[in-house]
């Protein structure tokens, strides 16, 4: 399944609807859906915030192979940004010293079983992978 979405946070409702279609089509268990929504929102909003140039849409592809469910987000990208290499987040400081920045990618790494990244021909793609129980 594949669809393109305008690069705006206002696309999130439509993206969640598309994910729901994918969850139903590929029989994704309820317990995995929250994590996948979380990861997709994080990667998509990063593309909106940090890569506003280039094409104005992001392609989202959903697939399942055996127990491996994947969502791939593809964006035009001049400068590679590998989300797997995002800096460590300070999780231990008291509230007055702590900043929430970077938390989204940290949590995405916690929620997903694997993240793949590829950059070529001015195009970046991030693939979020979740292993399903059945």
């Amino acid at each position, binding site marked *: 399944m594949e669809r393109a979405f305008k690069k705006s*946070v*206002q696309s*999130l*409702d439509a993206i*969640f609807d598309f994910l729901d279609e994918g969850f139903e089509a590929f029989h994704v268990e309820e317990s995995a859906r*929250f*994590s996948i*929504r*979380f990861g997709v*929102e*994080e990667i998509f*909003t990063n593309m*909106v915030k940090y890569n506003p140039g280039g094409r104005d849409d992001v392609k989202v592809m959903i697939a399942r192979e055996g127990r491996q469910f994947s969502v791939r987000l593809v964006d035009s990208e001049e400068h590679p940004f590998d989300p797997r290499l995002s800096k460590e987040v300070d*999780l*231990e400081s*008291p*509230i*007055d010293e*702590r900043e*929430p920045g970077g*938390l*989204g990618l*940290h*949590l995405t790494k*916690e*929620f997903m079983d694997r993240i793949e990244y590829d950059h070529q021909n001015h195009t970046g793609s991030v693939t979020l992978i979740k292993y399903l129980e059945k």
Partner: protein
Amino acid sequence: MFSVTFKDKNAVALSGRLDASQTDAARLEFDKITESAVMDFKNLEYISSAGLGILFATQKRLKSAGHGLKLINLNSHIRDVFRYARFEMIFEIE
């Protein structure tokens, strides 16, 4: 759809999905909280890191004035988010 309902000035209920498209609306509502309050997550289905950021800023503002939020009725997924973010150290969660 995301909404905030004030039962009174110390009791707030959230419902729906607090994602990045809802942060402006959430910030407007949370800015109305000026003292310690209980925030009920019973009908909140989903929160993203953008939502966490708004909650964090609200808690930071309240704490600096000697107040704070108590969060109740978190579903298991949202509880995981708070645990992975170590937000149990920042909020009172019941």
